[in-house]
């Protein structure tokens, strides 16, 4: 490994924060907005290039669990160090972030109100996301996790939208508050578990490398894992704690929805793997049936709830709840097939949902409604939007050729190796997806075009760019999944208690 390899992860984490700082210090006039946007976009692409470097340099034959390790002592008295490193699972998540973040910046190009602050918060959020994925120290992992979550409050609360439904109203303040209270509640559980692990291991170290070797005794593992599972699972949309998520989507602006469903929810699942299963393996094994049960409810409940929604974004929100269920199911199998599928599903769902929110945002941006009953025949005025929505919809319902199919297939295969009945249920859930996705497509895009929508514009250039890029990613990973799967597999291989 050369010098750059040692510092590439630090650079990746520091870059968004440095960008945020630079934007804060930027002599901020509204005439500078264009250059600030360009600056953010370019920096986002630089971090994408860094991730590409990591992908290319990742060594399949290395055999050691973590690569690109860099360790910097920070607070020796408490055993806290700024330790970074990635395994295959983290690399897959980095790839996801590296695609979703520039996409979100591009889609957020049209945000006019206080866009400087908007960009600062987006950068903070993504810095936290990158940090969480690459931290090998629980203190910093938690620190970055919190940084990733908290900007959501402002992003939804200020830039979001409030919507009145026939029987209730979702104000952006309500959704933002709900989201943050839920996630902070989860954080409490996570923080308690981390402290408990620190004390129980008695190694005076927050380093994951140490803690993963600590060999906690069974009774300890059995009470700590559920705390982690609930704490992180919350952010992943684990039923019945998913309820912040659809509301958050409905109120959030487009690019925030993209990052929220695309990347943030993956932090939760990632936490379950990294802090949960990898560090507390026997606890995970003992509690897997509960995770399995809740994941199964996620899949079925989410898809049935999505069927009767009248708001475009609620459908996608509940669809996310349903799709994240496959991640939990895959993890609960503790089988190579299932866990690999779960991680691939995290990647694939992130891209797919980002695409879907881009298109829903384009519809809302020009028609100012997301009411499925009011929209019809949009394919005539926005053919490109309709095309990409069909791509996203079919990717979502698990059409082979798109990445979601491979991911879900692996989850199914893993489930049938371990819990065949749940596997059958999961396949049925994927079947229901077709019902609500095609309903959406038929109602919103097909049929006669309502006169109100005759003059709607098609996707703007930035939206076309993003949609094309995301759709292409879905297709490439769907047809040639081996590249990503080889990386993920290298990470899954090191997860204890995973068999097969």
């Amino acid at each position: 490994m050369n010098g750059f390899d040692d510092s590439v992860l630090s650079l990746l984490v520091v870059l968004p924060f440095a960008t945020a700082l630079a934007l804060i210090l930027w002599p901020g006039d509204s005439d500078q907005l264009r250059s600030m946007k360009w600056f953010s976009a370019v920096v986002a692409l630089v971090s994408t290039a860094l991730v590409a470097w990591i992908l290319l340099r990742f060594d399949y034959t290395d055999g050691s669990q973590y690569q690109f390790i860099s360790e910097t002592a920070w607070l020796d008295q408490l055993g806290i160090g700024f330790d970074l490193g990635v395994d295959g699972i983290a690399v897959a998540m980095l790839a996801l972030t590296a695609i979703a973040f520039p996409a979100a910046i591009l889609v957020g190009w049209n945000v006019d109100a206080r866009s400087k602050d908007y960009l600062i918060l987006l950068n903070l959020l993504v810095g936290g996301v990158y940090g969480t994925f690459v931290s090998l120290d629980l203190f910093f992992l938690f620190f970055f996790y919190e940084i990733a979550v908290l900007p959501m409050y402002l992003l939804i609360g200020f830039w979001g939208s409030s919507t009145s439904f026939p029987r209730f109203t979702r104000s952006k303040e309500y959704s933002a508050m709900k989201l943050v209270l839920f996630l902070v509640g989860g954080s409490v559980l996570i923080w308690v578990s981390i402290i408990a692990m620190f004390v129980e291991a008695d190694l005076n170290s927050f380093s994951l490398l140490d803690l993963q070797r600590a060999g906690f005794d069974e009774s300890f593992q059995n009470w700590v894992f559920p705390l982690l599972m609930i704490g992180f699972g919350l952010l992943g949309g684990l039923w019945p704690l998913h309820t912040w998520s659809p509301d958050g989507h409905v109120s959030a602006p487009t690019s925030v929805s993209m990052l929220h469903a695309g990347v943030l929810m993956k932090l939760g699942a990632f936490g379950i793997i990294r802090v949960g299963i990898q560090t507390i393996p026997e606890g995970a094994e003992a509690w897997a049936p509960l995770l399995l049960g809740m994941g199964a409810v996620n899949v079925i409940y989410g898809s049935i709830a999505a069927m009767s929604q009248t708001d475009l974004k609620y459908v996608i929100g509940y669809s996310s709840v349903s799709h994240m269920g496959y991640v939990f199911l895959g993890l609960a199998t503790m089988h190579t097939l299932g866990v690999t599928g779960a991680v691939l599903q995290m990647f694939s769902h992130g891209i797919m949902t980002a695409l879907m929110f881009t298109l829903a945002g384009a519809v809302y941006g020009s028609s100012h409604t997301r009411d499925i009953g009011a929209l019809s025949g949009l394919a005539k005025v926005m053919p490109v939007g309709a095309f990409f929505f069909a791509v996203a919809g079919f990717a979502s319902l698990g059409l082979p050729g798109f990445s979601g199919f491979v991911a879900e297939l692996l989850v199914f295969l893993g489930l049938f190796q371990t819990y065949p009945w749940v596997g059958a249920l999961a396949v049925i859930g994927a079947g229901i997806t077709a019902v609500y996705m095609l309903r959406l497509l038929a109602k919103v895009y097909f049929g006669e075009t309502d006169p109100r929508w005759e003059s709607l514009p098609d996707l703007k250039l930035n939206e076309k760019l993003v949609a094309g890029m995301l759709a292409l990613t879905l297709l490439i990973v769907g047809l040639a999944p081996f590249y990503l799967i080889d990386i993920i597999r290298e990470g899954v291989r090191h997860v204890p208690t995973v068999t097969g």
Partner: protein
Amino acid sequence: MGTDAAFLAPVIPAIAFALILITGRRIPGIAPHLSIAAILASFVVWVVVFLAFLEDGAGTRSVEWFTVGGFEFTWGATVDEISLVMLGVVSFVAIGIQIYSLEYLHGEPRLWWYFAVQSLFAAAMMVLVLADNLLLLYLGWELVGLGSYLLIGFWWERRSAAEAAKKAFVTTRIGDVALLIGFVLLFEATGTFDISTITQLAHAGTIDETQLKWALIFIFGGAAGKSAQIPLHVWLPDAMEGPTPVSALIHAATMVVAGVYLVVRLFPIYNMVPEALDLIAVIGLLTALLAGVTALAMTDLKRILAYSTVSHLGFMMLAVGAGAPGVAMFHLLAHAFAKASLFLGAGSISHGSGQTDIQEMGGLWRRMPFTAVMFWIGALSLAGLPLLSGFFSKDEILLAVHDGRLNDGFLVVTFVAVAFSVLYTGRMLYQVFLGRLSTENEDAHEPGIRMWAPIGVFALLAAVLGPLAFEWGHDYHGFVSWVTDSEEGFHINMAISGASIAIVAVGLYLTGLIYMQRRISATAIQRRLGFMATAAQRKFYFDEVYQWGINQLVLPLARLTAFIDRAWVNDIGVDGPGKTTRWGGGVLRYLQTGMVYNYALGMVIGAVVLGVIWWSI
């Protein structure tokens, strides 16, 4: 060599699809060229592969796709008799259909999109046909479903077309859920998707019997969805919302036979599980019968043809269930060309006369003699008129039911189903072409060459393919034996053939009396039949039952779930604690009065309570 080249057959149309997507909208008129050139190239590939097959015999070639844990997933092609028959039919029929579409859809603004999807469909169908493993087969299977969805919904501005497309995809998707469960069950038992390995392991007895049985039954569920078997047949008649050439290609000749193809492909495994074959036979026969009856009650020409397709798919399934996959393939071949010419003929009629309802037609042979003759050939072939190819294939089905593993009850019902296919054919032919030409159809006219040529070619094939059934030499003991790689020659059962010919004669005579000479009144028969006629006209209420299920069960469940999510999970679970806290704060704030004597009183009470506790201990 042959198997290597076979890869090209799906790849070329796939490339054409990508090219059309990129250039189709910008360069007007390029899409049809790309698409037709690609499908012609695929056909050439088929010829090359077929010739190589005659030299080298069957073969399989596969490459690794990805590996997880100890499991390898592959992409590969199998070239054997079954896949070659299918590949030939698909590429050949697709050529004719695409050329026909040039004229039929002339002036259509989205023509480039039509040809893009045609190429996508061709590629997917060839993947399905050639796949050597269940995973790749599933990929092709779902993508042909996508092609079908997009083409049924080609005129998506029409609400009915959009709904029909959705209905087709969702209905087949129900089957596909079962299909995937079946595939995954087989994977669980064997650790592979490779069809020949699974077959070997099944024969070696390493797969648990119950698991194998259920896997096969589930897989048949998928086949039933795609091949429109009862009760999943409801989507096919509605699929006629698509352009007529699409109905000919996808919903008659190629995609809908995928289910039949699948059970034929897996027949060596199905053959080990009698229960699964029984199920296939029963469902197939039921489908053949009910769809035949329904076809007799329909008045829309394309819908009659659609129900006829459902009925014939039932016959094919019945043949498989009887233990004769080769016969199913033979009927598939005969049906493909006959039905393609019929649908194209129907398209030519609606193109030339503007009519779709057979009651509005009549005497059309005067204005469209060529179409009429070709239509008669195709229809009579399927009705089983001697010497046309359908006669041979239908005879073989009856023979298989008679000789095979099924009991005699099946044979009787099969004859009844055959009788209905003669009746609806006769009714259709007489009403459309004979009788008086109505004044509004005076202007009906024949189509141009790009439409009539494909009709003629398909009708010709439907007429002459019959002798393929015979034994031609030492290497060829008749089509059925060739397809299934057996030595058994072709034979004829005089009693069955005689009965079959008699049914055709009587059926055509009877319908002639009713619909041509009008000696017997159709409405009188209808009245006599009472509710049975109504039931047939209402398509045996399948749609009504499903609609009831959706309206009364599925949607309420969805609404209930959404309600629970808002009212319980959110309003009680989330807002509840929030409101309780606020309420609690509101109540408790009275405790903080800020007045010293209140706090002093509290201290005194506390001290007294503590004192009492201390005393009592």
